[in-house]
């Protein structure tokens, strides 16, 4: 019924994922993730085949409030408190990240063909796009160093799961979604606080340095220039 606008949301989702993969500034990352949240919030309204009930509106409002407003607010606060503005020296460069993103997209589309669709009516884009969002999130976690980017990665990943869930099983997503959303909410909250404290304690939120707290031998100690640069950027 809402097929065109439904697909449009998924295309926007794809673009936002690519934006996440390709940008280094935290403000842009947070803004993009917030936009993703709003898009996903609109999603329940598009799926209702026989008109939207109160439940749909409530879900939409809740999702937008959390993913579109609350999380970005928390992230922004964490960013300001930590005083970091951008991801420097990512593990995988930004253009290479985009390339990996394209590959992941191809893989997702292949998988979309392979995975059976539960309902005939759902759009072809649902499975590939939500999988791609999930992969983008995972990639952000793997390929970036700053703890803040990792939180954004987790959020993106959860967005993918959410998109998949709403589109696939819109009959009973409410309970599941509320559960997941609460989990993520607490997660982001805790991580925000943790980032603030880590930053205050160690003067940075670089996860490379944090892994040195473990007691295994370091194969390659970070060079002094490295640390210097970090300090300067902070």
């Amino acid at each position, binding site marked *: 019924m809402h097929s065109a606008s439904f697909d449009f949301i998924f295309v926007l989702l794809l673009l936002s994922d690519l934006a996440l993969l390709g940008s280094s500034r935290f403000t842009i990352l947070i803004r993009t993730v917030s936009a993703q949240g709003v898009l996903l919030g609109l999603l329940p309204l598009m799926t209702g085949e026989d008109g939207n009930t109160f439940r749909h509106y409530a879900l939409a409002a809740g999702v937008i409030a959390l993913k579109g407003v609350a999380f970005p607010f928390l992230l922004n606060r964490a960013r300001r408190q930590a005083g970091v503005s951008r991801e420097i020296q990512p*593990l995988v460069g930004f253009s290479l990240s985009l390339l990996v993103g394209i590959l992941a997209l191809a893989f997702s589309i292949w998988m979309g063909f392979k995975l059976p669709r539960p309902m005939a009516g759902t759009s072809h884009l649902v499975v590939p796009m939500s999988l791609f969002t999930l992969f983008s999130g995972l990639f952000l*976690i*793997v390929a970036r160093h700053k703890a803040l980017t990792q939180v954004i990665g987790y959020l993106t990943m959860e967005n993918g799961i959410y998109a998949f869930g709403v589109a696939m099983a819109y009959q009973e997503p409410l309970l599941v979604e509320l559960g997941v959303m609460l989990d993520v909410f607490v997660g982001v909250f805790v991580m925000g606080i943790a980032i603030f404290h880590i930053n205050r304690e160690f003067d940075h939120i670089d*996860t490379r340095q944090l*892994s040195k707290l*473990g007691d*295994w031998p370091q194969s390659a100690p970070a060079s002094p220039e490295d640390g210097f640069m970090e300090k300067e950027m902070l």
Partner: protein
Amino acid sequence: MNWLLAAIGVWLAGGVGALLFASSATWATRIGVASVVLGSVAGMVPVLSTLFGGPVLEFQAAWAIPSGSFSLGLDGLSAFFLLPTLVVGSLAAIYGGEYLLSYRNTKNIGMPWFLYNWLMAGMAVVFLSRNALLFMMGWEIMTLSAAFLVFFDDAKGNVRTAGWMYLVASHIAMEFLLVLFIMLGQEAGSLDFAGFAGVSRSAWLSGFLFVCAVVGFGTKAGIMPFHIWLPEAHPAAPSHVSAVMSALLLKTGVYGLLRTLTFLGHYQEWWGWVLMGIGLTSALLGILFALAQSDLKRLLAYSSVENIGIIFIGIGIGVLGVSRGSAALATLGFCGALLHAINHSMAKGMLFLNAGCILHATGTRRINLLGGLSKRMPLEGGTFLVGALALCALPPMNGFLSEFWIYLGAYRMRGIPGSGVVMPSLVLLAGLALVGGFAAVAFSKAFGGAYLGQPRQPEPQHFHRPGWAMRGPLLALALICLLLVPALPWAATLTVPMVQALTGFEGREILEQISSVQTSLWPLAIFAGFLLSLAGTLAGIRWAVLRGRKIGAGTTWGCGYAAPTRRMQYSATSFSQPLAGFFALILQGRKTEEKADGFFPRSASQSNSIPDLYLEKIYRPLFLWIDSRLIRWRWIQHGRIQAYILYITLTLLFLLTWKLW
């Protein structure tokens, strides 16, 4: 069953309670000890009732975990192993209450009490569970809490090594148990024990399952060659925990093996031979290594290997008897194994507590530094003697009474149908006799070295005299050992339902065998009575002769020298040296010495250590080899979270792609 559920509940809650009150050592101890004792008393009610012919209890509850069910059962076998658990567990807890308080200024006392309570709960669940998943959960709780109790004194490097060895050995063994239960469950269609027994299997498959059970449960029981964690972990743990580990934790392995045997049914003959072979090796080598040790708790730990070996010989004889259709042999073997398990629990539990008293009082476990303690701690000395006599299997002590069944089984093996049993029977008899002799040497060394003679060191500055909370449990366990002497032959009748479940013979047949052994014990009892009365008479004569005369006290083992010093005494190591030297090929002791040089040597010294044969010759080279192969993959594990997430993602993607392809 409600009583037992309540007991488990009390233990779990008491453990958490002790943890909550950890800031006050006194309250943590009170709560920890009280909950162990309370739970044990509650559990005693159904255990005793079932053991004395009461009904077999069952409990079932729904459980959300897939293919798991919260089903518990209390039959004869469970009750038989639970009884020493409750008795020794609570006595050791009372003992530990005082023992651990000496750490109150340096350690968190709540933690060991939490672990101890959960260890009790874990063991109870292992003995009671009737579902493989529940069993494994209990097993894991038990293993982990015991491991962390071993880690208690973790500032010492060897304690950490011991704890790790225990953890690694237990978890390698657990893999075998997982395979065992998964294969049993796959055939039966459910992981409930009830379904395991009735399934018919090919001979190959039962054989494979049997091997898994022997490796998995045998590691926990501490049989050779899987015993290497045992002589490390038992000395490292606090003494009341060593007592629990040796007396109870090892028995969970024995219980597991027996329980698995009831699932497998249709025993094959070679199982019996394998068990007897393993048992005899463990018994012989275990006691040989025990007599060469100079660390008291290590000596006791190796002696546990020996006793578990004897229990395994019994089980092996029983399996052979069943496979050859001889009710006599089957009864002798299984009944002897079960009775010996009880005796070992009581006596070895007591000896470990006793060793703890010595450690507490003098601060050392090295027998060569001890001596003359029986003058200062007569109660400890007396109880040690009782336990040592029991474990040497000297008549008429309880240890002898249970080994008697196994001796008789080895002897009667020649009477069963089929051939090829004469030689093994002779080897077993000779081996058991040799083990008994070695045990006598080992315990003479331990008792003589620690309690007799004179102190080999100048009196320690702080001689902590153990209080009644520590001496009471010793006395109780020694009394139990003495009470078991008349009670044990009679108690054998109680094992009929267990032997019936294990062998499949009719209860009447088994009872007949048991009563025939009981009758054959009468001459022995008369002889023992004669010996005791002779000893009594001699003591009386001595008292009568010495009455009214002045008794002078000379130096013990003064050897008639004019001015003997304490350093001229035989040391414990020199006591066992002739035998240890004879078996030097097996023991391979390491000796470092500085020889006396010239006519007026300034200094000379010698030190010996007996590293474990299997550890040195098999496990260390094996693990070093594995390590050298694996070191090149070290770059995979470098501590970066991102990469770990990548590994997980790639694995999941691979699996998904593989499935979808």
